[in-house]
Every structure is written in C-alpha cells, then in structure tokens.
C-alpha cells in the first residue's frame, strides 16, 4: 500500500484520515476503490498524479459543497447520462461528495417542501453554493413556456443564479439553447449565459455531455476552489482544446481518402471516414475520441459506432447545420473526388480468349479421342499377378 497513515507528505501520498469522515456514508466503497476513483478524476483533468492526493482530500472534506441543479427546457438526458456512470458507484459518490440540495428529477419531496428547501439553501449558503443548470431558458412572452412552482424558469434562474458561487451550464441547451433553440425557436430559448450576463458561466456542452466531463469540473472546483481553465466560449480546456477530427480513430481513413458515401456501403462496413456523410468532427471541439462515452469500453462513441458526429459541442453547428451536410474543414481541405472504395474491376470474358481456350480444349479432346480409339480395349491377360 502506497498510502499509509505514517507518511503524510502531500504530493507523494496522502493522509487517509479524511476517508474516515465519509466512510460511514459509503458502506459499499472500499478505500482502494475510492483512491482509484480519485486517480481517474485526476487523469481526466490531465493533472499530474500528485494531485490525486489533493483531490482525495478535497472529496473527503466534511464540509460538503451544496449544489443546486435547475432544470429548464430540457429532456433530462444530461441527468440520465450522469447516472449511467459506473466507476466506482458514481451516483452514490455524487451525493456524498457534494450535497445535492435540489434536483427536480431526483429528489423525493415535491412542491413547497422542495422549493422551500432550495430557497433556504440559496439564502443560507449565498455565494457558496454551486449552481448546475440543465436545459435552455425560454424568453418569449416573458418566459411562460417553462414554469415550475408558479414561477417562470427564467425568473428562478435569475434569482438563484445571482447568489451562486459558480454556475455550470451542462448540455448544449444550457450552453446556447441547443435543441429547443434550433431553427424557428418557437419559445425563444437562449442559453444560461444570455440570462446571467454578469456571472461567469462554465459551459459543458454536449447532447448529452460526457458525465465525466461534468464530474471532473465539479471535483476540480471542490479541490482547488476554482473552475478549470477555459477557452473563449467558457468551455473547460480539458474538454475542448482540440477538434474531434484531430483525435478521431478514423482519421487515417480521412487522410488516405477512404470515405463512406452512404450508410451500409462497403466503406461503412470497413469503418472508413464518415466525413462525406456529414460528420462534424472537423468543426467541433471535444474530447469524445479520447474519453469515449458511457463506460462501455473502447469503440463506444458516435463516430466509432458508425454515425457521423453532429457537432453537439459546438454552437452554430449542433442543431443548426443539417445532420448530413458536409462541413468545411478548419485545418485542411480534402479533395472533393476520390477513387471509389470498391472499384469495379469486373471484365467480361473476351470472345477471343474464350474461343482460343475452347479451341485448344476441343483439339486436345479430339486428339485424345483419336488416340484412345487406337488403343486396344481388350485386357492384356499378361502377368499382373506374377510376383516380381
């Protein structure tokens, strides 16, 4: 065991006394699994492994971070994705690492019992709690298209958001409006950033986003009391620093001009590049090729299973550009025409070729028949049985 109580030097190892604080509430989690979990989170954040100790201490801190989870115009897919995480029992972990004080889809109480508790927390921990928003915010007609507890969602969001220590917009809808805000946008949906204009909103887009991206962001906040570094769209850099195209497992096929032209064709069966059937990987930033999705092992994200990326991470691409429209290439342009994957090499048999072979075969047969007829057909009663 590397981690012992005797050695307390943070960085090389960790003091595990903190684990005792949460051990009672995690009866099924062993110390070893807990450390593995911390190491996984550290790796996802691309932090040095010495940070594992800090993360473990952050997690075992008895003062748990209150989290309020608000749901707007959404499908609860982000929540569903989060609760499909497995290593080690994430749903148990998330309730015990943080204090999830309000989540409409998961809480037992309803009505004033729930809402009242939420506002109690907002008041009690003003400036200390974390707000996670799932879903877009309808603004049209004063925001009447999404209401809860007799209040328009936009008003709830403004009230709670103004007092939060940090806001995470999870999913494409919360980030910029996503699916509800797609063309026509009948309810006037916008992203959280357009409502909470004075607050910095960390965006974790995706439809649904990879749950480990959210989990890692929250735990980074728990550990270091700040959000991870972000890009110009406030997306954590550990998620969105590279194009999906750049890390795609099918990239060699792109570079070599082997493209799928339609679903189910030979190139599709061979796992070639999906660019020409509308893959948005070349214009979408994300860690999908490296993180994969849903703990089902390798080869389990949209492009790997044979569907083109539709750009859910990218405002202006996902839910905007038609699914099968070929996108531009940011870094390099590929030629529009390539040789077919399955070239047709079938040649009909030439008349001369067939005639020559048939002629020779016929001549051989004729000569053979002639020769056979010249041979005696009677048995030669010689000395076959004679012993040599």
């Amino acid at each position, binding site marked *: 065991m590397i981690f012992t109580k005797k050695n307390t030097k943070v960085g090389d190892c960790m003091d595990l006394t903190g684990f005792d604080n949460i051990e009672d509430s995690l009866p099924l989690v062993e110390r070893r699994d807990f450390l593995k979990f911390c190491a996984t989170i550290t790796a996802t954040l691309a932090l040095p492994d010495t940070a594992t100790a800090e993360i473990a201490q952050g997690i075992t801190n008895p003062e748990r971070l209150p989290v309020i989870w608000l749901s707007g115009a959404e499908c609860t897919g982000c929540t569903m994705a989060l609760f499909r995480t497995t290593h080690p029992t994430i749903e148990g972990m998330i309730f015990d690492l943080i204090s999830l004080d309000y989540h409409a889809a998961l809480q037992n109480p309803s009505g004033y019992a729930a809402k009242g508790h939420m506002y109690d927390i907002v008041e009690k921990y003003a400036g200390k709690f974390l707000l996670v928003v799932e879903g877009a915010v309808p603004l049209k007609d004063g925001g009447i298209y999404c209401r809860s507890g007799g209040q328009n969602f936009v008003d709830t969001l403004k009230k709670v958001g103004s007092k939060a220590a940090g806001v995470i917009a999870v999913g494409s809808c919360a980030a910029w409006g996503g699916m509800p805000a797609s063309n026509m946008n009948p309810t006037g949906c916008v992203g959280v950033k357009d409502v909470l204009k004075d607050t910095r909103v960390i965006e974790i887009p995706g439809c649904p986003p990879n749950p480990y991206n959210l989990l890692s962001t929250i735990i980074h906040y728990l550990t270091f009391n700040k959000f991870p570094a972000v890009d110009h769209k406030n997306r954590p850099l550990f998620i969105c620093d590279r194009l999906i195209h750049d890390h795609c497992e099918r990239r060699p096929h792109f570079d070599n001009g082997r493209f799928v032209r339609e679903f189910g064709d030979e190139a599709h069966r*061979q796992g070639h590049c999906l660019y020409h059937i509308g893959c948005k990987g070349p214009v979408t930033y994300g860690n999908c090729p490296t993180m994969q999705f849903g703990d089902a092992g390798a080869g389990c994200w949209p492009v790997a299973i044979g569907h083109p990326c539709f750009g859910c991470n990218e405002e202006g691409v996902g839910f905007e550009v038609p699914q099968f429209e070929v996108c531009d290439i940011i870094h390099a342009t590929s030629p529009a025409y390539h040789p077919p994957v399955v*070239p047709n*090499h*079938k040649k009909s048999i030439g008349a001369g*070729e067939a005639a020559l072979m048939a002629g020779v075969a016929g001549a051989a047969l004729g000569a053979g028949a002639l020769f056979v007829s010249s041979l*005696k*057909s009677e048995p*030669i009663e*010689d000395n*076959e049985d004679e012993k040599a």
Partner: protein
Amino acid sequence: MHKEVALGGRIFTPVFVGMATLVGLMVIALGFRFILGLGAVSNMSDGYPWGIWIAYDVVVGSAFACGGYVMALTVYVFNKGKYHPLVRPALLASMFGYTLAGASVMFDIGRYFHAYNLFLPWKINYTSVMLEVALCVTAYIIVLWIEFAPAITSKFKLEKLTKILEKTAFFFIAVGVTLPMMHQSSLGTMMIIAGEKLHPLWQTQMLPLFFLFSALFMGFAMVVFEGSIVSKAYKLGDETTILSKMAKTAVIILSIFILLRVQNLLLNKQVANAFSFDTASITFLMEMLLMCTGLVMLAIKKFRTSPRYLFVGAVLILLGSSLYRFNVYLIAYAPMIGDWSYFPSIGEQIVSYGLIAVEIAAYTFFVKYFAVFTKH
C-alpha cells in the same frame, strides 16, 4: 539389367514443327510481356495476382511433373527394380515440367530482375512459405538435371564425369525424393494463408497433405499417361502390364485422398455447400466425379489391364485432380474486397500452350538424341 538407348530417327517431324510454331508464338507474347509489362499481355490484376501462369504452369504443371518423383520413390526407396525402365522417361518429363514451371514464375513476377535476391541469405524472409517453394523448386530443378545428366554425358562420351555422376547419384536421388514432399505440400500451405478468400469447400488446414497426396497420385497417373502415349508413338512394344501396376498404386493413394477429403468436408460441415449447386458446388462435384470415375475404372482389373481404359482412367484422374488444383488456386478463390474477375487472356494462354509445346518438342528431341527408353 535394362539398358537405355537413343531412339534415333527424324527430329523434324510434323509434331515437332507444330510445337515449334507454338513456341514461336509464345516467344512473341513473351516479347510483349518483357517489353511492355504484365498488363499488356495478361488479365492479371490486384484482385487476381495469380493467373494461369501460376495456377496451371506451376501448380498443376509441377504435379504433372511428379512422375519422376514417384518413380524414384518406387524404384529407389521401395526398391522395385523391375520398374526401372520407367524411371528415365519419367525423369525427363519431370525435368522439363519443373524447369518450365520455374521459367513460368519468372514470366509471372513483375520485377523478375530482382529475383536473384531469393538466393541471398541476408535478404531472405525466413518465415515465408513462398520462399520455401521458390528455393525448394529451384533446388529440385537442379537435382533433376543432375539425375538426368548421365544420359547426356554418356552421349558425349564423358566417361569420367559419367562415373562421378553415377557414384554420387544416391545422394541426388535421396534429395530428389525429399524435395517434392516439401514444396508440393507448401503449395497447399500457400492457400491456407488466403483464408476466407478461398471457398470453404477447399479451405482447410489439411491443404498441405491434400496437395502432397494429389502430387503422388497425379505422378503415377502421369507415368501411365506418358507411358501409354510414348509406347504407342515410338512403337516401344506393349507396356500395359507394367503401367497397370503403376495405376494400381495411384488407385490406393487416390482412395486415401478421397476418404480424407470427404471426412474433412464432413468435419467442416460443408455437405450443404457441396450440394448447393452453385458455381463452387458444381466445380467441386465435377472434380470429385472425374476423380471417382477414374478411380473406379482403374480399380477394376478388367479395365486396368486394357490399354484403352487404363489410359482413359489415368486421364480422368489427371483432369479431376487438375481441376482440384485449379479450384484451390483460381476458380474457388475470390478477392475479399471489390468486384474482380479473371479469365486468362490470349497472351497468357499462348504462353501456357507454348510451355506445353516446349515440353513436347524437347521431349521428342531428347528421346531421339539421348538414351532414355529401354527397348523391348
């Protein structure tokens, strides 16, 4: 003891002239091949990199040329001295068969001028089965020429050399009965590597054994075939008695082959495929029908001792087993990706026919000029 003599007589018979014409056509076709490249002459493609120059001239041709191998096996290993008169003619046919198979490979490989690298140990890929075939066939061609050499040296009265050759003959004979076992089975191994490209009716781990067995009975059948023709053509007297004994051996080996083949198909659950009557099934049934008819014909003593049916039976076996080898190398082979097709072009056919013509012309010349046959 038997004593071989040269037959003498006219060299430029109508057959010889006819064959020489075919050889001339082949030389023209090969001129195109070597000046303009493979594509100008052949229908070979990336999908079918092996055409009849390999499937016929090497794979089938080398099995036809196993007469020398089986006769050496019979006379020297199994010590049946009475068959000695058949050795030198069979050896001669084998010598040309193998030499021309080797030549055919040189026509077939795109960059033949790199072929010398095969013989540079530091350039060799030691795990290649194709290398095994290439080196083994090369060695065997040399051995066959050395085995036949006494007929040539005695003709030119090189007494000393003839003596040395006769004294060292045992070594080359021993090598000569070993080498075909190696490369004939390797010819089967090569198509195991083809995996799913080869139809399951033929694809099996037993391919090396099947190829070795087919080489053996094809060798015996070829001895009967050649013996029947030359004894008639050169009026050597009747050889039916001795040839029918060779046929008997062929029958035994062929029965084992067919038993193994059928058992292997049952094990691989290929019975339904065999009788599905698609192209593969039909060629398979043809191949089995030809071999079995020949087998039955030669198994019955009445037919076996008749010069006519002895010849017909041997031809049926040769046709069936050639079809087996054609199936494995061409007909039942399909490239994995893409629509490819292959039918030998006129140029390819002319070269293959030309090679047969070379064999016949050279054979007729050699038996007249050198001491090959034993006259009764």
